[in-house]
């Protein structure tokens, strides 16, 4: 009996769709970077482990709760009594306070989100973003990569399996690094395989 439907070879089965909270993806799809060539495929996507966001998430949580705590327990501070702020001022101050808390969380999130290390078929791309207005992009060709190291020290890092990956380049080119990335040994090994060398712990 002839086949009615033959499923084509699923060539995309190894590809992973990157989402907002992805930190480690092999053959990622759905992302692109500036100056990416049309035929340049991204092989590895790395971002800081999500657990590294815990401090600012905790601070945001506390900041959100502070006004609620005052309202629930009806705490009257001596200063507020003395100032006897009119209600309209209080409303504006509280909305402004929550907007600032939102901005604090948002800036921390985008600082995490836009710090990525990409490995393509041709090069390694390190995108750094910090302090709201500082961004730095470094490219290096895979042929210029001399050595790949990784470090993973400490209980927290071992427990959550994250660490630093260092890509050392030849000559005056900038060395690239992926800080606090998940599965550093595997990431270093993937880069090392691409350049035909062995990755090793620093």
């Amino acid at each position, binding site marked *: 009996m002839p086949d009615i439907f033959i499923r084509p070879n699923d060539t995309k089965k190894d590809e992973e769709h990157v989402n907002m909270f992805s930190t480690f993806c092999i053959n990622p799809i*759905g992302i692109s970077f500036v100056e990416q060539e049309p035929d340049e495929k991204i092989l590895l996507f790395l971002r800081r482990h999500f657990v590294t966001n815990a401090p600012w998430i905790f601070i945001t949580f506390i900041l959100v709760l502070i006004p609620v705590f005052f309202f629930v327990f009806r705490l009257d501070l001596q200063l507020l009594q003395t100032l006897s702020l009119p209600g309209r001022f209080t409303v504006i101050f509280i909305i402004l306070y929550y907007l600032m808390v939102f901005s604090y969380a948002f800036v921390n999130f*985008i600082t995490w*989100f836009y710090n990525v290390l990409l490995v393509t078929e041709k090069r390694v791309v390190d995108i750094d973003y910090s302090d709201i207005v500082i*961004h730095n992009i470094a490219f290096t060709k895979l042929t210029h990569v001399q050595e790949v190291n990784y470090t993973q020290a400490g209980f927290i890092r071992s427990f959550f399996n994250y660490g630093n990956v260092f890509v050392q380049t030849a000559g005056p080119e900038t060395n690239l690094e992926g800080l606090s990335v998940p599965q550093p040994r595997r990431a270093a090994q993937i880069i090392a395989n691409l350049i035909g060398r062995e990755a090793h712990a620093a």
Partner: protein
Amino acid sequence: MPLDSLSLLDSPEVILFVKITTLVILAIYIIFTFVILTQVKVMNRIFTEMFASTVLFFLALGNLIFALSLFLIALVIL
């Protein structure tokens, strides 16, 4: 001396001062949110993640719109 007599916001001059200070803080905050929006746009050009980049842009834009709205509300009600 009772606390009521220490009330700082009884005089119109002090209320005007607090209002102007609040508006200045809000204006600075608007500039800050505008800088964030600009940076998100720049970073989205450098690194694009289809869905997330759009979400972040609209969050930054929403933050700016909220800040502008709050400034206008403060201008009217304070």
